[in-house]
């Protein structure tokens, strides 16, 4: 249903857009009218709209996303080679931000009302208010130029990678992954920390926490064994919710650190007017987000024994 609506929206967009979907070729004055006609016929743009729509949808269903003019390859191939890099970046940022975010929230709740709590809240708020691309640029500036600890960009070292052994290649890749992953993690963990702090504070007045306290458990034990467990359910919801932000974050972060993922491909496609590739990225991104929230729903059912029976 959702994919269907995305398909309709993209089809409408492609056809409302001025000129042909491949105006990059069409606007070239060296291309004669006859060639244009043949191109149009080849790609089926001379057919009536309903027929084009049926064709478009059936092509989508077969995983065909069109032709990328800037890469001179099918969009599907371009995105398929880029996707693993994006998924790696997102996975590292997801794990990193939830670990860091939950830890920050635990520290805050353990010392609720203290100066530490307020300071951490302020820092989270600061990071939440930062645009992804600005933090990425500052990180690049700080840790690749001013303090040249990490590479300026790219996925691997273009020269040395070939000469490295297996371990060396992995280290090289992680070295390049560090800054983009750090940027995304910093942004996402701020949101997780805020959310988790509220979730923990929601749980604390509950009866079983009071029971645990009356049993004589230390505050730390109570937080770790009782409050955190029950406040984990909202965190699973949060995974589903943070997926769109993480994905759109990769668009900027990948571009700035030249991390060769889907976002990098799509952002460069915007500049080179490769519209089919842009739309392909939009469609795949929407599908990823939908799958992400589906996954979160499944996890939720798995984690909550009350839902398991149903």
């Amino acid at each position, binding site marked *: 249903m959702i994919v269907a609506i995305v398909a309709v929206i993209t089809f409408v967009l492609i056809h409302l857009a*001025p000129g042909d979907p491949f105006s990059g070729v069409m606007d070239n004055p060296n291309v004669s009218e006859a060639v244009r006609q043949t191109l149009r016929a080849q790609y089926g743009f001379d057919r009536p709209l309903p027929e084009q729509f049926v064709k478009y949808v059936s092509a989508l269903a077969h995983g065909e996303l069109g032709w990328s003019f800037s890469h001179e390859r099918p969009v599907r191939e371009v995105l398929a080679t880029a996707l693993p890099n994006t998924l790696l970046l997102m996975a590292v940022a997801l794990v990193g931000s939830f670990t860091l975010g939950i830890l920050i929230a635990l520290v805050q709740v353990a010392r609720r009302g203290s100066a530490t709590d307020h300071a951490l809240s302020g820092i989270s708020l600061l990071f939440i208010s930062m645009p992804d691309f600005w933090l990425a640029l500052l990180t690049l500036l700080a840790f690749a130029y001013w303090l040249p600890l990490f590479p300026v960009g790219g996925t691997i070292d273009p020269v040395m990678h070939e000469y490295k052994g297996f371990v060396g290649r992995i280290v090289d890749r992680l070295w390049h992954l560090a800054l983009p992953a750090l940027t995304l993690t910093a942004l996402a963990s701020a949101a997780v920390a805020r959310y988790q702090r509220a979730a923990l504070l929601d749980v604390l007045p509950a009866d079983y926490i009071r029971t645990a306290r009356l049993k004589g458990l230390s505050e730390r034990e109570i937080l770790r064994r009782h409050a955190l467990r029950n406040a984990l359910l909202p965190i699973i919801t949060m995974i589903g919710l943070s997926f769109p932000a993480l994905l*759109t974050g990769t668009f900027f972060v990948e571009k700035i650190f030249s991390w060769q993922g889907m976002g990098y491909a799509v952002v460069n496609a915007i500049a080179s007017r490769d519209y089919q590739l842009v739309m392909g990225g939009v469609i795949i991104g929407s599908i990823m987000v939908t799958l992400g929230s589906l996954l979160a729903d499944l996890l939720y059912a798995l984690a909550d024994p009350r839902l398991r029976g149903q």
Partner: protein
Amino acid sequence: MPWQTQDFAASSGPTRVRESPLGLAVRRILRKRSSRVAFFVLGVILLVGLLAPILAPYNPAAQPDIVFGKSLSPSFAHPFGTDPYSRDVLSRVIYGARLSLMIGVLATIVSLTFGVAYGAVAGYAGGALDAVMMRVLDAFLSIPRLLLLIGVLAAWPQLSVAALVLFLGLTGWFGLSRIVRGQVLALKHAEFVTAAQALGASRRRILWRHLLPNLVSPIVVAATLGVAHVIVLEAGLSYLGIGVQEPLASWGNIIRDGADQVATLWWMSLFPGLFMVLTVMTLNILAEALSEAHERR
């Protein structure tokens, strides 16, 4: 103590002016120091935007000396430096405040109009219409807003600011309309609505005069967050080159102009970004304080 009785008389007496829920909320949040600071900072930035033609030391689009005046680091003459076209970055940041804030507010007004109308109709109508409207909303909500905007704006390059505002507004009302629908649904069978119905009030009158005034607080919170969100989105799109077009200055496209040479032109990323973070942060603080004030009521 005499002032206690006086206070009591003043607050319960017939002379007391009835205060709007919004005025009450504003007074309540201003008791917190953090929101007073946020209010002040936001006011200053707003003023900077409004008075841009007076405050900006140079014309933001002028390129006085493309050979020797370009890419200058911050100095007394150019506190924020100049860009690769020799334009004064401070003046561009000031005009950028004007444009970015304006886009944020106008797009949010568009979103509010759609979101409130859609949510109120769905919630008040109920039944099959509500179900269909909510499924459509789910579909829209599942596409990340930035991706939707990239899809739209990449198709129409070189859009005018008005069109940009429209698209930003049209992609921002989905969440709000869900909130409005929920509230309308919850209040629909409240006693004061039944009373109004019994008095023969029309559906439109009930919606406008009885239901919507009760939704002012959540709507104001959503609008405050909405402005912050639009400012970040517009900056992102302008950074990608599909938002505000040159020679107009917005915080996003100033950063874009310097992003390729961030190592040498650091001032072009740092200063507009600081303004943006400050604005968004104050808006977030105020939204949080507003929703707290609402919850305590």
